[in-house]
């Protein structure tokens, strides 16, 4: 299997599908001439022309709404949020229109729309440019929300996202754009609503998605050094959420740690805990631990920023807590 970066895998999913299907268009700020601020769309304007790779003014609400209109007219638009931090300006279009149109039209209108872009913290991007919005968008029925962590998944899930007849919130792990991995050639769709066991283990289940998945794999390595066998679950889909996979895992390990970059309250980790205490009540040997970001807007200074994100040490310590190896 060819090895490629997360960024390339993503671009190739779009480019390949655009070659197959003329109804796909891209919209976003500086995705064309400029090449995309994260170079995800670099070169696509040359390949497909400006009618299909549409540079827009800085008007997230407007062009997301326009993309909904395009979807109604039979296109399959892919909107780039330059970063998801700007999507608050499109929240009304996403939540009030895209998510509900199929329902309140009594099924008369479909919205096959993908809204994609980098999500989560970068390096010192500070308060307004650092958000993890899985729970935020995941809350709304009518949307599908995914958060792929590997090059293979980002390609396979983008293919699925484009072909899916619903509005899809595609939360890329911006921090992982440059990471590499094997990517199956051709048309390997990764379906939504299926979590992935990223590593098998027996003593404790570590659960995350996106940027935290590679972090958990490192944690698992370190725990292995302490003779602790950790199973790592990559949720991949946020809505629908595959509860079965992690519940089954915890029924086996009896202990779980959920890790996320986002804030603790009303979050993905809250949900996972709520599901686990319900579905694996009799299996849990310890309270499920959550590891989350600090409850603060992201600071700029690197030392503060690092202190505000979940770290390997946080997770190790949480894993040891659920194993009653430390307090």
């Amino acid at each position, binding site marked *: 299997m060819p090895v490629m970066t997360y960024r390339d895998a993503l671009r190739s999913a779009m480019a390949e599908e655009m070659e197959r299907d003329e109804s796909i268009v891209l919209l976003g700020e500086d995705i064309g001439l400029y090449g995309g601020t994260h170079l995800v769309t670099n070169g696509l304007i040359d390949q497909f022309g400006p009618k299909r790779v549409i540079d827009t003014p800085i008007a997230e609400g407007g*062009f997301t*709404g326009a993309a909904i*209109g395009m979807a109604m007219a039979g296109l399959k638009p892919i909107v780039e949020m330059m970063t998801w931090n700007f999507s608050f300006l499109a929240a009304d279009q996403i939540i009030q229109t895209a998510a509900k*149109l199929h*329902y*309140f*039209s009594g099924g*008369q209108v479909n*919205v096959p729309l993908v809204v994609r872009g980098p999500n989560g913290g970068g390096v010192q991007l500070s308060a307004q440019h650092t958000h993890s919005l899985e729970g935020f968008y995941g809350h709304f029925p009518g949307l599908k929300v995914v958060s792929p962590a590997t090059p293979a998944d980002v390609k396979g899930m983008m293919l699925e996202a484009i072909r899916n007849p619903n509005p899809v919130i595609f939360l890329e792990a911006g921090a992982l754009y440059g990471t590499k991995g094997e990517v199956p050639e051709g048309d390997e769709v990764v379906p939504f609503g299926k979590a992935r066991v990223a590593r098998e283990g027996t003593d404790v289940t570590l659960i995350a998605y996106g940027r935290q998945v590679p972090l958990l794999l490192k944690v698992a390595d370190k725990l292995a050094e302490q003779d602790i066998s950790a199973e790592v679950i990559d949720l991949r889909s946020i809505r*629908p959420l595959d509860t079965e996979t992690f519940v089954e895992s915890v029924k086996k390990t009896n202990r779980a740690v959920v890790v996320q970059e986002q804030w603790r309250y009303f979050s993905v980790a809250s949900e996972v805990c709520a599901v686990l205490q319900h579905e694996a009540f009799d299996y849990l040997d310890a309270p499920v631990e959550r590891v989350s970001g600090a409850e603060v807007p992201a600071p700029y200074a690197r030392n503060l920023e690092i202190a505000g994100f979940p770290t390997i040490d946080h997770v190790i310590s949480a894993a040891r807590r659920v194993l009653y190896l430390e307090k």
Partner: protein
Amino acid sequence: MRYQYLLLAIVFIILMKAARRATRVKSATYGTISTMSMVRDPDGPAKAVPPVPARPSHTGQGIDHDNAISSADNRQEAAMAPIIAPADTFTEGQAQVAYDAEALVGFYQKMVEIRLFEDATTKAFRQGKIGGYLHVYSGQEATGTAFLGAMNRDKGDVAIAAYRIHAHALLLGAHPNNVMAELYGKGTGIVKGKGGSMHLFHAEGGMLGGYGIVGGHIPLGPGYAYGNRYQGGEAVVQLYLGDGSIHNGAFHEAANLAGLWGKSGLCPTLFILENNQYGMGTSVERATAMTELGKKFESYGIEWERVDGMDIQATLKVAEQVQERVRETGKPYAIEAFGYRIVPHGAADFLEQYRSKEEVAKWREKDPIPLLHGQLIEMGIEEERLEAIRAEAKAMADEAVKFAEESPDPDLSELLTDVYADDTYVEPAG
């Protein structure tokens, strides 16, 4: 609680009487046409519908009147002079087609159908049979009737509008029975009872909603237009918006995209700005310092003109011409249809603290239906014929009500369908 309701009912009757008094002279000239939910026996005197306690728009709880209006000064400081229709700025149009009396009779019929249908909805709302929000189009019928009439479904034309849209659905061929059933929240409703008054869709007829967030639907228009042209279509999108929505960022962003995409002929969008002079209770003067609303399109390189939105002969003159112009150029174009909402904003909003009865009365004199009625009589159409049209329209509305009342509620299983186009499982309540 009962006492409050009684008080409300009394206030309501007084208001109704005042409104009737204000419009009596004019309404005498147009027979059964009414707008304040009065059902008139064609042969007898008008009878007010027995008022049921109006409900506040949100909770079903009584409204308190403890905080009566105390200071006229503050109020005057806030209110501005009533707006006068800038009649001299209306365009005449250069219609190829001259509408003869026969054609106009057809338009008369459409407008009457809408009016009487909506009168019936208001009545049903007051009876508690229609829930949620209900916004009727009374006073503005000439605009929708002319412009929607210019749509060409063979070419794929569609309309996208906000929430004051019963007329749009009816004019684009939705069956009145299904529209009424929708308002009643019945399973036979045009969107299965899932949307209600604000979310009417009739995709087959080109009616693509039906949206409740002011301004939220505007970007959809240029997007649809682009999407259609991109695929080689030749559709024109009629995009209806209110004067209140024009100050919203969504308008600005969408109009700018339309202008921009229009440069490459990829955005055949006809903006139809219905300036009825109020966004809910806020007059244009109180919403912007630059009140010449159509002019705002110039910021986006979009040409525009203003028409008298209450005179169907005026709107007709313009409608077909601009529809084809937009089709040919692929560029957006804008119409400011200047008019007036002669009814309260929504059926629950009977307290109109923000405008005077005199102002409403003055504008009711320009009501497009009696206006056309008078013109037709002058053209030699016989009153009996128009009377028959009204009777038929009334029968149509009655039939719709009957259909709606007799229709079953939606099946409870409908709650969980249409969330996802691929029927992904969703969880029930509990």
